[in-house]
């Protein structure tokens, strides 16, 4: 069964339609890369999945449960959306770490707040000890065990993005989204972040990565989606799409990378 089904998603800002009938499915453990030129709607799509924007039409179905249906206001209550957001994680292009907290606290904060929430799932009602252990393990996993007590301003861009990845992993999202995770980094720092993302591939973690790193997209993903002007022009096997695109717009887009 598909872990994620996106059906006929549409989103407009004022008169401009930014997403026009977007549909795709993902299996559990799959990695999908979304590629496409600037303004094609990639960020908007990820923001819709995390309910930072509400789509005007369409459905978002996770593990068979309809989390969002534009036609059904009952699925759009703010309280509910907050709970549903936990099924997704989002790593931002510019990290958005909390500057007043150490790397460790950045990772712990959401876990701590959720643990105090009486309505949270049992698996999130963790003790302070468990939370700290978990956060340290995550920072270790992204290679920052010696940076836990540093504040964001004391870290390089690549390190900050790795903290942000650990922070996103803390709540164990079923589907983790990355919005151009290396675009704000100096070229020499992209490698460490891409390596971490690659290492996160596992059978129970589904990932959607918006990226301009074509070689990375081809190597790491099981599925590639090419977007242009708010529509999915072409999607499928990474090698097929990146090495042998069939659509004119895809060919034109990819030619810029060689």
């Amino acid at each position: 069964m598909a872990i994620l089904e996106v059906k006929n998603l549409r989103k407009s800002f004022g008169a401009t339609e930014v997403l026009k009938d977007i549909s795709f499915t993902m299996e559990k453990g799959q990695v999908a890369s979304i590629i496409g030129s600037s303004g094609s709607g990639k960020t908007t799509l990820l923001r819709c999945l995390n309910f930072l924007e509400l789509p005007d039409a369409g459905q978002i179905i996770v593990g068979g449960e309809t989390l969002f249906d534009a036609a059904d206001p009952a699925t759009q209550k703010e309280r509910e959306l907050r709970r549903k957001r936990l099924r997704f994680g989002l790593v931002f292009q510019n990290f958005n770490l909390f500057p007043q907290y150490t790397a460790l606290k950045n990772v712990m904060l959401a876990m701590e707040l959720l643990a105090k929430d009486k309505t949270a799932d049992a698996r999130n009602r963790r003790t302070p000890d468990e939370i700290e252990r978990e956060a340290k393990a995550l920072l270790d996993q992204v290679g920052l065990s010696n940076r836990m007590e540093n504040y964001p301003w004391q870290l390089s861009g690549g390190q900050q993005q790795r903290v942000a990845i650990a922070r996103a992993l803390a709540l164990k999202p079923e589907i983790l989204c990355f919005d151009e995770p290396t675009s704000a980094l100096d070229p020499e720092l992209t490698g460490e972040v891409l390596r971490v993302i690659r290492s996160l591939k596992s059978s129970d973690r589904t990932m959607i990565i918006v990226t301009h790193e074509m070689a990375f997209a081809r190597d790491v993903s099981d599925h590639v989606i090419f977007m242009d002007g708010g529509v999915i022009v072409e999607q499928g096997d990474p090698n097929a799409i990146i090495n042998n695109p069939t659509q004119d717009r895809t060919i034109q887009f990819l030619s810029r990378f060689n």
Partner: protein
Amino acid sequence: MQLFFEQFPIVVRSLNVGFLQTLKLFFVTLIGAIPLGLVIALGSMSRVKPLSILSRVVVWIIRGSPLMIQLLIIFYFPGIVLGKPIWGGGEGGRFAAASAAFIINYACYFSEIYRGGIQSVPVGQEEAGLVLGMTKPQIFFHVKLSQVIKRIVPPMSNEIITLVKDTSLARIIALQEIIWAGQAFMKSSMGISGAIWPLFFTGVYYLACNGLLTLLFGWIERKLSYYKV
């Protein structure tokens, strides 16, 4: 010179009494205006249009007109309209009126500082909190508040130092604050008459007070300098 040494303790005692009134007005204004400013700031950022328009118009009027006129209006206007004064007689009534005027005036200035501070927190901070399943109040208290405080400490310290000096305006409604006390010696007070130096000497009190405040705010700024926004 001998005369000066005889006068000095008498003057200081009198100025101390005035300064106490100055300090009272200062603290009462802070206690009232710091929270009221937040209410006005939230009002002016509200999505309810009439509320935000009302808040902004009030702020515009209060910031756009002299505090001295506001003092006079608040002190005399209710009496003129209602036919009887609402502030009660004597120093207590004058203090109540002065407090009301100062609280309203400073709340409006503070509200603009708060609004600037809140709006300067990048929207990405809120979005990061949202995708981590935080509620709006959690985001405000655990993510934004510290950043807002860090940003507003320098403008607030300017405003609060101005407040110390502005309290002297209250003598327009005869509140017996320190300048009023100093000025009294120019005519006659406590057996001293025609002395102008007590009025100049009040400046020492203001300088000492603002010196302390400058140290306090410097300390707060250093406390918050462990991170950068």
